[in-house]
């Protein structure tokens, strides 16, 4: 048990994703302002301990894939007062990301050795 993710990363740089709009209780690293918004994967960051588990004394394993996602500011905020090319990047764990146009989360593909 190395704690590495059980599956390969689902998304790649340039993919459009929607942030899952959900308010589960507990420690989450997904700010409210970005829930339900659509962005583009800027880069894959690697796999990291899941803070939603480690915050409560669990080991947070297996690790979760983490991405940087880029959003247009004019998309996030209704009354954004700035340049149309202004952007905001933040880091999202894979389980908060949904493929664009998908009504439901896609089933995870297991790695076939």
């Amino acid at each position: 048990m190395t704690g590495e993710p059980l599956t390969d990363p689902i998304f790649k740089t340039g993919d459009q994703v929607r942030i899952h709009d959900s308010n589960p209780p507990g420690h989450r690293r997904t700010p409210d302002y970005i829930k339900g918004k659509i962005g583009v994967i800027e880069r894959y960051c690697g796999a990291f301990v899941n803070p939603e588990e480690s915050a409560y004394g669990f080991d947070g394993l297996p690790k979760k894939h983490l991405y940087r996602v880029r959003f247009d500011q004019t998309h996030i905020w209704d009354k954004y007062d700035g340049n149309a090319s202004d952007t905001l990047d933040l880091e999202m764990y894979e389980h908060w990301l949904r493929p664009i146009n998908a009504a439901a989360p896609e089933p995870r593909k297991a790695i076939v050795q």
Partner: protein
Amino acid sequence: MSDKQVELNEHGHELLAWSDDSRHDVDEADHYVLMADAIRDLLIEKGVIKAGDVREQLEFMDSRSEDMGARIVARAWANPDFKERLLANGTEAIKEFDIPMLDAELVVVENTNEFHNMVVCTLCSCYPRTILGMPPDWYKSKTYRSRSVNEPRAVLKEFGTDLADDVAVRVHDSNADMRYLVLPLRPEGTDGWSEPELAKLVSRDSMIGVSPATEPATEPET
């Protein structure tokens, strides 16, 4: 000597003594200080950590300052190869400075004539502490954390940074495992400057992205 009553907690530890009027002045900060001290005492009592571990960590964090970041930026300005490696993988590139990133990864974002980067942590106060030292109070304030994501240009203006309309602002919300360092634009008139000379122009705030690097005096200081 003193007839002061010493209060003990249930573990027989002396309660913290503050100033004489401390009982009238207990605010939220005091509450969290007390909680943190209690957790530390319990961890020590249960053998999870030693008192020396806490002291060593404090000493290490206090030894960090923005001078580390300034050296990194200066090398990136002076050395294109290093800059390329730094932008591609910050964590790997700064190993040559012997600066640890601890559990986080470093992402370096470059200011250009087209893009201006600024860093915030809306959820708490994530900050590249091993590179920049402890964050300034304003970085941790709810005002900066909320406003810099939805009106970054207004915030920048209040810091004295008035961007041209054709420069795009890239805000980076440092909300998970990455830590961010802004590589500011190299000031004009610094051709041929050495890394130590360049480092003097690199302010903390320019590496958070709320201000440009310092403009040089007409002659480099030696």
